[in-house]
């Protein structure tokens, strides 16, 4: 049992998570980091990143990147804002419009990558510029603003911004996305194709895997997840903002790699991605509970990140050598 677990891609991330969590639990006595509210805090933080990290991770396992998630989050929140606030439209149709826009951006990315065979790093970078440029241009054209309020119905508020105590409903969304991601990657046939596409594209194609379909589907999933995060953030903060989500562009790949996914594709697990995200949430939230001088905040972040990844690596090696 234990041995088998140790060999899984997430073993390292799990060990790193436990160590980091214990570290903060001990370093922040009496500040409530381990309390229900403190836990809700870092879970809230991890949840939004986690929702987009999972499809980004699947995409990375299939061998591709998506740098356009940042602008998609912003665009989706602005669609909600412009629709409900400027045009006074009801919120639900706008939610679906935002999701459709996310899917369309993903589809465009996927088609462009698959048809032109250009590296997705560049294609999605161009998309990122185009989407944020279009969002800003259109917002300024329509409303003279790049950030605007969102008027949401109670039902929408419940679905996207309900809170129990301090825990946001986004945590449930995260779990849902993680569960779906897990079923797809580890259990479904499509998941086998994802691994194969990233592991050896030629071999996968030769074996009859529809590699183009795999990639396009994952780009669409990523676009959808980014749009969902835009909706969650927008409804929660009652406002759309074209720059929402910019940080995710690099945080998502980071937590995915921490979670044990190979940057070159072909290897990784959803559990690992979830743990990597949780680790990131614990670090970036917990660090403030320590009361350390925040002038050094990035130094601490870097050191903790390095320590976590080293622990991760050490466990993985240990696991491989003992089998």
């Amino acid at each position, binding site marked *: 049992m234990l041995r088998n677990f140790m060999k899984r891609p997430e073993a390292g991330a799990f060990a790193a998570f436990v160590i980091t969590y214990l570290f903060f639990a001990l370093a922040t006595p009496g500040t409530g980091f381990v309390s229900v509210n403190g836990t809700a805090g870092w879970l809230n933080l991890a949840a939004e990143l986690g929702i987009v990290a999972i499809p980004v991770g699947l995409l990375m396992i299939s061998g591709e990147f998506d740098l356009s998630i940042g602008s998609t989050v912003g665009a989706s929140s602005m669609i909600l804002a412009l629709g409900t606030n400027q045009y006074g439209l009801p919120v639900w149709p706008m939610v679906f419009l935002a999701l459709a826009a996310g899917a369309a951006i993903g589809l465009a990315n996927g088609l462009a990558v698959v048809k032109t065979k250009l590296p997705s790093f560049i294609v999605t970078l161009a998309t990122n510029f185009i989407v944020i440029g279009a969002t800003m241009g259109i917002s300024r054209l329509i409303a003279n603003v790049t950030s605007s309020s969102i008027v949401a119905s109670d039902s929408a508020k419940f679905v996207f911004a309900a809170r129990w105590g301090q825990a946001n409903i986004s945590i449930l969304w995260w779990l849902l996305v993680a569960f779906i991601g897990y079923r797809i990657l580890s259990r479904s046939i499509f998941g086998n194709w994802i691994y*194969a596409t990233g*592991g*050896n594209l030629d071999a996968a*194609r*030769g074996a*009859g895997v529809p590699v183009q379909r795999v990639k396009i589907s994952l780009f669409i999933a990523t676009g959808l997840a980014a749009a969902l995060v835009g909706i969650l953030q927008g409804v929660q903060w009652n406002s759309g903002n074209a720059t929402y989500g910019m940080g995710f562009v690099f945080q998502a790949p980071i937590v995915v790699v921490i979670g044990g996914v190979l940057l070159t594709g072909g290897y990784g697990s959803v559990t690992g991605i979830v743990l990597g995200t949780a680790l990131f949430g614990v670090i970036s939230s917990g660090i403030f509970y320590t009361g350390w001088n925040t002038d050094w905040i990035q130094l601490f972040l870097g050191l903790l990140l390095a320590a976590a990844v080293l622990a991760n690596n050490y466990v993985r090696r240990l696991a491989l050598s003992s089998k």
Partner: protein
Amino acid sequence: MSQPLMELRDVDKFFGSTKALKHVSMQVEPGKILCLLGDNGAGKSTLIKVLSGYHQPTSGTLMFEGRPTKFASPREARQRGIATVHQDVGSIPLMSVGRNFFLGAEPATGRWPFKSIDTRLANEVAVEQMQKFGLTRVTSGDQLVGTMSGGERQVLAIGRAMYFGAKMLILDEPTSALGVKEAAMVLKMMRIARQNGAGIVFITHNARHAMSVGDTFVVLIQGEVAASFKRGEKSREEVLNLMAGGEDMSELEDDLEQID
């Protein structure tokens, strides 16, 4: 003569200015083993990549079961019952034996939304099929292919093709990395597949293997069909010369015999 399973008519395949195949015509018949022979770089692998939908021919027609066909992808070919062992398009090192074996034709269990890939079945079948070839060290379908020896990987690919190659089986140098026992087993399995009515294309540089199982022989020299004959129509010597790209092998052979 029965209707050929697959037929190439005047097929060309160019890579940029490299003419890998020139005016190739040939027929694969069901229940027969066609040996594709030729020197290194003669175009054999390119030819089978055209047969299996991996490459599109630059010009010419491919007929499958009597109808002109264009395989848009290897997937399509595979779904029509053509299974291939490629020479250089290997397996996926970071995936398990079971998952590699069933890649592209995974067995499912359960119902939507809980339909899953049946890993237990996949692992069992994969190990069983590989052990048929005499491999004893591979006992778990969960082992990563990347940790297997060259021959073990080759057996995986062959076992897979034989398991799925309902109508047609294409094997590009399947025995080259294999031990004597495993190679003999592969030849034996090919004969069984032939009995079951599959059309088989077999590439090898081993004259002994070719002569022992081949029904018809097609020889490529520099991308062109240089000869095509039936079992027993040519002597071992003639075949060897053709396999060497038309050059006279007797001298080299003598050389080898000297010390043998």
